[in-house]
């Protein structure tokens, strides 16, 4: 990939990240770069640690070893003040939306603005309505989160994540629960944010077809490592056993389908019968 030889430093540089949770190795000396101004997709089997990886990038979790550099700063080493200052420049779309149930849609999107700026009300209103329009929900500004459908809640969360026009946006499964119209709208939005404002985007998603339309680069993570990477349009045909199995949907192969467990026959009490 020529784009990866670009002169600028990658915005996110992960080196040798090792994380063990409850005795399970989630990351095993993981190396990964997120280039500036590009859309990078991260794929991998469920439970492989994609959400956990995003949490490392934002400092919500810390690894046991290794470096996570965001814009040149080592995230695990940052003080709380510095971390918060960094987070103001990062938009994060939660896998489960995580809207504030106390506030209506408008106030949810306005929340980061109200907390971090002294902007006049007119300006806040304009920014919020612009973002809501971009996700097609300007008309829903007065609804409470409990009155939204799952897909609508995700689009509101998306509007909230981009309200600051951050330098980096992390989307955790942005396409889940979207109908085809909303999906192409969100795809267009991600593309526009990237092209017009140069925002670096990281997408965690399972939908290869959608990823093909927006992402410049895709990483496939399994067993705590990057097992394949490349152009999303061609990665499925790169011939490696990982991609062949993952994109082909085969249950048997190098990508584990089962959560690590003890012997199946033994668990069912059949061990004696076999012996």
């Amino acid at each position, binding site marked *: 990939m020529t784009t990866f030889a670009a002169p600028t430093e990658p915005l996110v540089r992960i080196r040798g990240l090792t994380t063990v949770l409850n005795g399970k190795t989630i990351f095993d000396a993981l190396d990964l770069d997120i280039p500036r101004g590009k859309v990078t997709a991260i794929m991998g089997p469920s439970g492989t640690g994609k959400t956990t990886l995003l949490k490392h990038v*934002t400092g919500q979790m810390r690894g046991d070893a290794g470096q996570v550099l965001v814009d040149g700063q080592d995230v695990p080493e940052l003080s709380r003040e510095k971390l918060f200052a960094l987070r103001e420049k990062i938009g994060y779309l*939660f896998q*489960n939306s*995580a*809207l504030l*149930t106390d506030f209506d849609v408008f106030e949810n999107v306005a*929340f*980061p603005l109200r907390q971090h700026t002294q902007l006049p009300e007119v300006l806040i209103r304009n920014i919020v309505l612009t973002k809501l329009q971009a996700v097609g929900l300007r008309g829903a500004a007065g609804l409470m989160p409990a009155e939204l459908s799952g897909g609508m809640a995700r689009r509101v969360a998306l509007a909230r994540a981009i309200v600051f026009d951050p330098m980096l946006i992390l989307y955790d499964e942005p396409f889940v629960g979207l109908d085809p119209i909303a999906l192409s709208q969100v795809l267009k939005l991600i593309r526009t944010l990237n092209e017009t404002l140069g925002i670096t985007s990281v997408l965690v998603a399972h939908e290869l077809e959608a990823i093909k339309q927006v992402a410049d680069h895709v990483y496939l993570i399994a067993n705590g490592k990057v097992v394949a990477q490349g152009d999303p349009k061609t990665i499925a045909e790169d011939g490696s056993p990982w991609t062949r199995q993952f994109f082909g949907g085969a249950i048997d192969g190098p990508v584990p389908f089962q959560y690590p467990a003890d012997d199946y026959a033994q668990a069912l009490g059949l061990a004696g019968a076999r012996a």
Partner: protein
Amino acid sequence: MSAQPRRNVVTNALAQIGEAGLFLLTLLAAVPRSLRHVRETVRQLWFVGAMSLTIIMVCGLFVGMVLGLQLYYVLSIFGGTAASGTVVAIAIYRELGPVVTALLFAGRAGTSVTAEIGLMRATDQLAAMEMMAVDPIAYVAVPRYLAGLIAMPLLCAVFCALGIFGGHLVGVTWLGIDNGTFWSNMTATVDVWKDVVNGILVKSLAFGAVVSLIAVYQGYTTPPTSEGVAYATTRTVVASSIAILALDFVLTAFLM
């Protein structure tokens, strides 16, 4: 967690008290940072204070009425119904006002604070605030804690006023104790500092500090599940009730 040493009931309770104490230090340290969120504190004061007014007023009235009734029967045996105003006022200011208000507050406002914070944790709202560079301790925990602290003495004052009104209603208006005797005996024996200030201010501030701490702490540290939130809500009521009554004994012993 299996890695932790096994605890019995006593060590578990002591460990919880210690953790709650540390949590209090975190809260106090965040008070300066939460000054930016004054509006949130006022909003919470409305939720925990104003919304508890009805139950406090109704209960205060009935407690005072029952007190007036019981005292009338007991005191009339000795022909001493004139003392009824004094006893109603002292019982309410010193004990019933602060204690019953605190117990009602724990059930009405403490539980809702615990459940609300617990659900915010379970639905990732606290994590979302962290991600938006808003400190949930300063934005969520401290305003609710301060609101409880401020609301308690105010509610207690309302409770006391309604209690004495209730005692007067039954004793004077219905059972015929002389109005002038009722009030003059009361004003002659009730001491502003010893009874009113100690009760409404000292005791109920202490109760407010403890009940709010328990409510916020239980909500903040609950496991993020529906079961966890349910247990935390129950624990708020149980722990608050025990703490209020135990603390009441200690405070009474020192203040009287």
